[in-house]
């Protein structure tokens, strides 16, 4: 967490002698930004530190607290540290212990997470440490206790680590509301935000400001200085360079060679499936038996911790990891980062590159390995963006109403509150700065009794007004239920994976398991496994035989393709002057497209139509990202059906969508298909039955406190006593389409899995700017997406078509053998 590299010698006179001696004793110099953060603290200002990884950010955040605590004994909680990761909180605690012990400071520091023993948690509430390291969820829980005012009364500093990763999502929204609460309980507490370099520093400043807006003048902005520009290059593997696919396995020998040539390598991939496959492939050729490990979010936590620990001790030569390692502790030993597959965003790439070489005076070294031709363009675009330091990332948006509902209930659990005062308080949180009173009241009504237009639940309120106008929870059952369900992370339902009579390997999503039949083999936790069956809620497996898994992959952990990178890719396609700098196969490919069809223009939409195998294909180069394309595909197939074009299916990538059908769409049909009125009735109708929307609704309902989380050990037994979120969605949608939970669902749908906002932007942008090319056969640019068919999920037109197909398959299969006897047809 410190850096011993030569810096301009900063003035240490602002430091107390103990600290000066400590720095000198280690022959260290404080970084200028560490001292600037100290000045901000002494001036009583909030502070936002934006610095690349490895800039001594943590000490910058804690220095003022340590000094204050060293000067006078302090009774109670002085500094609250909030991290998005439990593991990070634990690690920071360890790092913090070092200066505290070496300087013999009279400071107590403890962690509090979901893993903290109950007795310790209880004790922490009665007598908190000086420094408490925790997560947003644990903070929300603490704030819901009636003794919260006592715990936080003397709080002086709140440090929020990895602020850039928290602010733009629901966890950050819940935390922002918690901060607003803390501002009431401890008005003097300063806020300190630690962030990586981001595209939207103003939004982070607003987040830290006690007014929830920029320009309050109370937030000091400190820059950790730029790191030396990274050395990033593209490497095309020696294997046959693929037209499609995302695994990058063709380059495994080159990846291995790079690992051999470096001290420690982080190999980043984009999906868990990719991690598994690449890990396998590396070990197959690992002749030197190098210690290479695997790390992704589905693996058992203890296994991940083990990998991290060995990594810290320098015991590994490489780790193949997903975004599970994007955040976290710094490993000084890493001197090479390899990104396999396109990076999907420039900020993400920058962050991943920053995981190598935490010394500010030397460049980080990174290699990008595109998995297909399109990805070469995306890799080049990302490298250009990093060079020019144009960043991207999700801009924090308006706070979600389901999160607000949870916060209101939590506030009520802590004690009676007045709605007017809570409304004012909530608006000091940046995501809710523009929240209207009507929306607040609607959410409050939901919390109170469900907030339905049919007001029959007066008797069943969760909150009741007291004579003095304050609202309070009706009983402790409500508070207990709140505490069981706190937080905004709604995991997909997962099942544990265990070796038969053996050890626990990790967890996989329920939907993946549902696709398996006993005997199927798949890759997981770095090995080939045979699916044996599901016992209770555990997936039983045994070591698999054979070379290749029969079930290719499981989904999970797909990264969103940013608009910024998409724009850059489009610009590269349009401007052929830079093509010669691209690898030869890619340049040839683009030239061929120029010759056979046209290149997509940056501000227009190219649609190609061509026949193939008795069907017609429509390929649209939208570049709006996979999620928006999936939604577009659903809506387009509906329209094509209505237009009598008999669509049969579609497939979408981050760049392109391809739809095929029995009839050839004419040029004038195509323009109509992309009309923006698609977002009216068609969207409404689709939303009624979309499984994605239903999943979104379920998450919203869980966060808002309508549906309780499925807790392990509480699964239904024999008789069905639970209820089904899909059925609630159907009933609510038909009776009260403007209910607050449906509004929250639609707001979520605008981003996330359905990405309707981006789709809307696209449709507006291309109105009357569509270029339709009728070709006699597939174009070079369309080849990659056509190859995806069969690997990717293919969506059919209507639900019933799929059912008929499945039924036809089954009956054909059944009638072939002895099944006929049992079929009562």
């Amino acid at each position, binding site marked *: 967490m410190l850096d011993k590299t030569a810096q301009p010698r900063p003035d240490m006179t602002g430091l107390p002698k103990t600290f000066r001696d400590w720095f000198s004793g280690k022959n260290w110099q404080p970084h200028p930004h560490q001292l600037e953060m100290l000045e901000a603290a002494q001036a009583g200002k909030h502070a936002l530190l934006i610095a690349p990884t490895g800039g001594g950010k943590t000490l910058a955040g804690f220095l003022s607290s340590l000094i204050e605590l060293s000067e006078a004994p302090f009774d109670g909680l002085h500094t609250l540290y909030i991290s998005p990761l439990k593991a990070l909180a634990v690690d920071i605690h360890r790092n913090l212990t070092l200066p505290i012990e070496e300087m013999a400071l009279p400071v107590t520091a403890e962690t509090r997470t979901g893993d903290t023993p109950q007795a310790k948690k209880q004790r922490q509430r009665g007598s908190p440490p000086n420094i408490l390291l925790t997560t947003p969820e644990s903070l929300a829980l603490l704030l819901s206790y009636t003794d919260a005012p006592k715990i936080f009364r003397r709080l002086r500093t709140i440090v929020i680590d990895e602020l850039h990763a928290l602010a733009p999502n629901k966890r950050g929204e819940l935390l922002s509301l918690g901060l607003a609460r803390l501002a009431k309980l401890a008005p003097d507490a300063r806020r300190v935000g630690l962030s990586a370099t981001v595209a939207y520093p103003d939004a982070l400043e607003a987040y830290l400001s006690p007014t929830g807006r920029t320009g309050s003048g109370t937030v000091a902005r400190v820059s950790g200085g730029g790191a030396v520009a990274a050395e990033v290059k593209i490497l095309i593997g020696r294997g046959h360079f693929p037209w499609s696919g995302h695994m990058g396995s063709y380059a495994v020998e080159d990846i291995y060679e790079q690992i051999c040539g470096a001290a420690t390598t982080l190999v980043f991939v984009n999906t868990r499936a990719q991690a598994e496959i690449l890990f396998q492939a590396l070990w197959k050729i690992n002749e030197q038996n190098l210690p290479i490990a695997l790390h992704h979010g589905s693996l058992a936590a203890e296994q991940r911790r083990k990998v991290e620990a060995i990594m810290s001790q320098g015991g590994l030569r490489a780790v193949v990891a997903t975004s599970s390692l994007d955040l976290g502790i710094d490993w000084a030993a890493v001197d090479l980062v390899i990104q396999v597959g396109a990076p999907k965003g420039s900020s993400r790439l920058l962050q991943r590159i920053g995981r190598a070489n935490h010394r500010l005076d030397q460049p980080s070294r990174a290699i990008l390995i595109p998995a297909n031709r399109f990805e070469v363009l995306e890799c080049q675009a990302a490298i250009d963006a990093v060079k020019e330091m144009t960043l991207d990332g999700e801009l924090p948006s308006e706070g979600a109403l389901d999160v607000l509902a949870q916060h209101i209930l939590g506030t009520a659990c802590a004690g009676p509150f007045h709605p007017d005062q809570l409304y004012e308080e909530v608006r000091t949180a940046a995501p809710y700065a523009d929240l209207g009173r009507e929306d607040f009241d609607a959410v409050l009504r939901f919390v109170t009794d*469900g907030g339905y237009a049919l007001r029959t639940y007066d008797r069943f309120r969760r909150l009741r007004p007291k004579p003095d106008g304050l609202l309070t929870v009706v009983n402790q059952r409500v508070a207990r239920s709140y505490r069981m369900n706190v937080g905004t992370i709604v995991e997909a339902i997962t099942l544990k994976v265990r070796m038969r009579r053996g050890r626990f390997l990790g967890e996989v999503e329920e939907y993946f398991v549902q696709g398996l039949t006993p005997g199927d083999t798949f890759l997981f936790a770095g090995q080939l496994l045979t699916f044996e069956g599901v016992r209770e809620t555990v997936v039983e497996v045994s070591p698999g035989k054979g070379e290749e898994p029969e079930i290719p992959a499981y989904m999970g952990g797909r990264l969103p393709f940013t608009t910024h990178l998409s724009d850059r890719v489009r610009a590269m396609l349009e401007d052929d002057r830079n093509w010669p700098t691209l690898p030869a196969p890619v340049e040839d490919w683009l030239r061929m497209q120029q010759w056979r069809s046209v290149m997509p223009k940056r501000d227009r939409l190219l649609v190609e139509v061509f026949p193939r195998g008795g069907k017609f294909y429509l390929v649209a180069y939208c570049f709006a990202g996979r999620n928006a394309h999936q939604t577009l595909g659903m809506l387009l197939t509906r329209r094509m059906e209505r237009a009598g074009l008999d669509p049969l299916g579609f497939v979408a990538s981050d760049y392109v969508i391809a739809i095929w059908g029995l009839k050839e769409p004419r040029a004038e049909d195509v323009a109509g298909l992309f009309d923006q009125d698609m977002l009216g009735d068609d969207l409404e109708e689709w939303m009624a039955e979309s499984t994605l929307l239903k999943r979104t609704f379920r998450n919203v309902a869980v966060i808002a406190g309508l549906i309780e989380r499925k807790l392990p050990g509480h699964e239904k037994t024999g*008789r069905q006593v639970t209820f089904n979120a899909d*059925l609630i969605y159907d009933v609510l949608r038909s009776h009260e389409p403007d209910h607050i939970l449906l509004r929250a669902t639609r707001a979520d749908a605008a981003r996330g899995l359905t990405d309707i906002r981006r789709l809307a932007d696209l449709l507006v942008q291309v109105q009357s700017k569509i270029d339709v090319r009728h070709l006699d056969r597939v174009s070079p640019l369309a080849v990659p997406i056509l190859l995806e068919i069969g690997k990717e999920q293919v969506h059919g037109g209507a639900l*019933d078509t799929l059912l008929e197909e499945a039924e036809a398959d089954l009956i054909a299969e059944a009638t072939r053998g002895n099944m006929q006897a049992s079929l009562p047809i």
Partner: protein
Amino acid sequence: MTVDPVPRIGQSSAMTSEPLILNGVSLLADLSGALYWPDRSLLIISDLHLEKGSSFAEKGIPLPPYDTAVTLKRLAAICGQYNPQTVMCLGDSFHDTGGPDRMGKADRAALEQLIAAYDWLWITGNHDPELPEDLPGRRIMEETIGALTFRHEASREPVRGEISGHYHPSARVRTRQRYLSGRCFAYDSDRLIMPAFGALTGGLTVHDKAIRAVLGPHFDILFLGPKRIYRFPADRLC
């Protein structure tokens, strides 16, 4: 591997009901989840779970209060469609004992109007919530008509010609590329388990051992799709 969904097998217009034979008796399973016995002009429905929403609301989970109205509307529609002489509710008609007291006036009136229009039979079962005394309709623990016996929960002994509810069978259908889940009838040539009719009643997978205990490993389901019914052998499901 071929990837296109196959061209449609003629969009059949009917298929909103499916014939089946149980212990020699011809029955009609309806897409709504009701079962019709034409020879006896008998319409059977199961597990209405009226007032389920308010039951949860009472426990601090305010589910939408519209489920009773939705269920009764569907019930009225299906009664109107088949116009049977007798309607039989196969138990768990209210979600809990307090249900009738929580029921709104309009819903109660709609229910009584339905009951008055038909010969109405409540199957109550052993441990089902008690129905209020002032609710019209005949009550009976179980009923045998011809070759069929009707009870709420399937008998633990092997029997022939039994129709029951209680388990709310549901299934997950694996199409080539995705999964669909929904309610279903589960049956073999001797016994049939009805899907739940209530608007907020979820399902129990037909793979559950409770259902296997009744039907054994080999039985069929009639899956209630969005627009029509599909027949699958249960052991071919995932």
